């Protein structure tokens, strides 16, 4: 009888590498034959498209502000139109020598927007800051103070107008929206009905009809001899429009508050307004911050519509700049691409910011 000795079985081989670039490519691009085929087809098409676009937009492009250079056979994109017209595109019909004021006002406004997005500024005095900066913005743009020549609002245009319309209308729309959202959930049938009709009416019609109303019908609505600047009228139109959409977003947040919160508040003896102010709104608004941001992005894009009622913000300023100059008229597409890039830069950074805020808001719930 032989003694049994412990004989370990051979160790299993180490698993195939699962990290690293080569493995990632194998798993994600050539997992099986259908994926591989897809990669080849899509990749081929992509390569074809990218080389053509690059050749048009970069290698064969004309960069100098010389419209004759753009008309040479074989030249691709004509970025000269941007080099030539960028001041007109960015500031519209604002007087050329005074454009530093528009630039300063825009930068100031941008700083304010960025500041409002950072946590250190989420304090009550932010409201005061907004009032002050808006005051300086209007003083810079309108002039007529401290030796600055007056610039009427019908000459305002380009990026400052876009930013002003978007940020001011969402700020003004916010309190209206909170009121309407509370009204739609009120126990009082008449108030509920008024708010519901307002929201459904506005949401059922396109923004452009609201803008037409602001520009054509508003003068008829007012008492005789009473006239308001078209910029203010359009701003009012956009504000009322944005408020209806914002109200629905906020109502979504209100609906998500569990009933127990209201009951607890009632037990503590809080009145309706105390309950809303101290219990419901802080929770509901925090929940819908990402949706509010999305709303703001939508509104920022929608400001391009004021072109149709002859306010020359970014899109309108571009059309004005190029249509007024026969030399550059064939190169509209390049101009459009340029402002598309500006809009994209703004909206994309805002959507990234909205993702960040979402994370911040959800931190409380994370365990």
């Amino acid at each position, binding site marked *: 009888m032989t003694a049994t000795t412990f004989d370990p079985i051979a160790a299993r081989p180490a698993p195939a590498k699962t990290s690293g670039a080569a493995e990632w490519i194998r798993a994600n691009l050539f997992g099986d034959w259908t994926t591989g085929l897809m990669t080849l087809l899509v990749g081929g098409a992509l390569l074809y498209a990218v080389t053509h676009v690059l050749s048009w937009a970069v290698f064969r492009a004309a960069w100098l502000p010389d419209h004759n250079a753009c008309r040479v056979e074989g030249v691709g994109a004509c970025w000269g139109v941007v080099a030539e017209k960028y001041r007109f595109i960015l500031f519209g019909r604002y007087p050329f020598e005074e454009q530093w004021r528009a630039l300063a006002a825009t930068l100031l406004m941008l700083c304010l927007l960025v500041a409002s997005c950072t946590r250190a500024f989420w304090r009550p005095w932010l409201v005061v800051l907004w009032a002050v900066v808006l005051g300086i913005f209007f003083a810079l743009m309108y002039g007529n103070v401290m030796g600055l020549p007056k610039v009427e609002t019908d000459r305002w245009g380009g990026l400052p107008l876009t930013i002003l319309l978007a940020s001011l209308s969402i700020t003004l729309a916010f309190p209206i929206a909170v009121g309407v959202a509370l009204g739609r959930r009120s126990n009082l049938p*008449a108030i509920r009905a008024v708010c519901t009709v307002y929201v459904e009416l506005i949401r059922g019609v396109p923004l452009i009809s609201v803008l037409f109303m602001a520009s054509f019908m508003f003068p*008829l609505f007012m008492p005789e001899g009473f006239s308001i600047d078209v910029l203010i009228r359009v701003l009012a139109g956009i504000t009322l429009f944005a408020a209806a959409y914002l109200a629905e977003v906020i109502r979504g947040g209100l609906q998500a508050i569990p009933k127990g919160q209201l009951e607890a508040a009632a037990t503590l003896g809080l009145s309706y307004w105390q309950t809303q102010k101290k219990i419901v709104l802080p929770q509901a608004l925090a929940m819908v911050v990402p949706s509010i941001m999305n709303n703001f992005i939508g509104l920022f894009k929608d400001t391009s519509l004021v072109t149709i009622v002859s306010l020359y913000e970014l899109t309108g300023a571009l059309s004005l700049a190029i249509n007024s100059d026969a030399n550059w008229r064939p190169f509209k597409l390049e101009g459009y691409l340029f402002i598309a890039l500006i809009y994209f830069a703004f909206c994309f950074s805002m959507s990234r910011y909205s993702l960040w805020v979402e994370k911040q808001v959800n931190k409380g719930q994370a365990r």
Partner: protein
Amino acid sequence: MTRRPPPAKKVWTWRSRALRGLVYQLIAVLAVGLGVWWLASNTMHNMQVRGIQSGFDFLGRPAGFDIGESLYEFDSGQPYWRAFLIGLTNTLRVALIGIVLSTLLGTLLGVGRFSRNALVRGLCYAYVEFVRNVPVLLQLLMWYVFFAEVLPTAADAWTFGPLFLSKGGLSFPIPIWEAGHLWGVSGLLAGAVLAFAYRRWSFRTFEATGQPRSLFWVPLAVFVLVGVLGWAAGGAPAHFNSPVKGEFSIEQGGSLTPEFLAVVLGLSIYTAAFIAEVVRAGIQSVVRGQGEAAAALGLSPGQSMRLVRLPQALRVIIPPLTNQYLNLTKNSSLAVAIGYPEVVSIATTSLNQTGRAVECISIVMLVYLTTSLTTSFFMNWYNRRAAIKER
């Protein structure tokens, strides 16, 4: 046994909630009523002072302008109401085609975000981010510049087989109607009936015996085959009215104007990016276990998406999808910026000619309100059908 508390008696003192509620409501209604009355009386007064006529009687008068494209014949001698009707049909045409195209493209893009292929995933992501973050008006303008200015003239139109693409739009052959086509149409109808009957029969046998049969490909084949047979029985008429390249324009055949192409493509591409996000969020809302269970049953990833995950995601998808359809319909009003004669464009032209701002803008608002309410009614109906059937 629980006893309900007696209903609270309403006490009409100043401290009672009931009275205060009543007062608030009265104030609100009065404020709104007074506001509307004030605006209306101002408007009346202003119209009188400026000598603006009011009323919808202008609808019966000759319009005096031509319309670039319409579903039926229109000339400037015809009344305004017919012009508005053309605007309405043009709006609906763009909205319907746009909804179909953007749903197809958006679903593909949304599903593409879950592809195992990183290239496809990345492309779908890039599409959504780029398209979503540029205003739709700007995109429409860009498409219009592309179709109306970048494309070659009719003389050197791009040719794809029988299709011509040029500054004049897209020209394509249309079949000429002949008596033989009637056979084809009746063949298709018969095919549809047969395919439907086959589907029901295979459902029944599946439930009785558990024997699975094709519910899609065979009925489709039956439908197409019977249709082709009917067409062949009618003598296989195949005469087309094909476009011909003329000296200055593409003649004959069917054609789509550059305005129409720009509006439909621009709106579909823009809305598809939003629909893609809606579809993605819907699919993500289906719990992981469903996909894993499908894989355990041996379904391929494609089958798992088509048969298990997508149908469940549909319940989450439908309400926001309705919103996107409504947005598309409302955004079709931007076509006014590129001169496509939809209802807003007709209204502004009429407004400039007659000066009846209130009436023209009310017509536009009424049209959109009606379409919005109808669309949401239909989608709510569909939503109820797709909702979970609970016992």
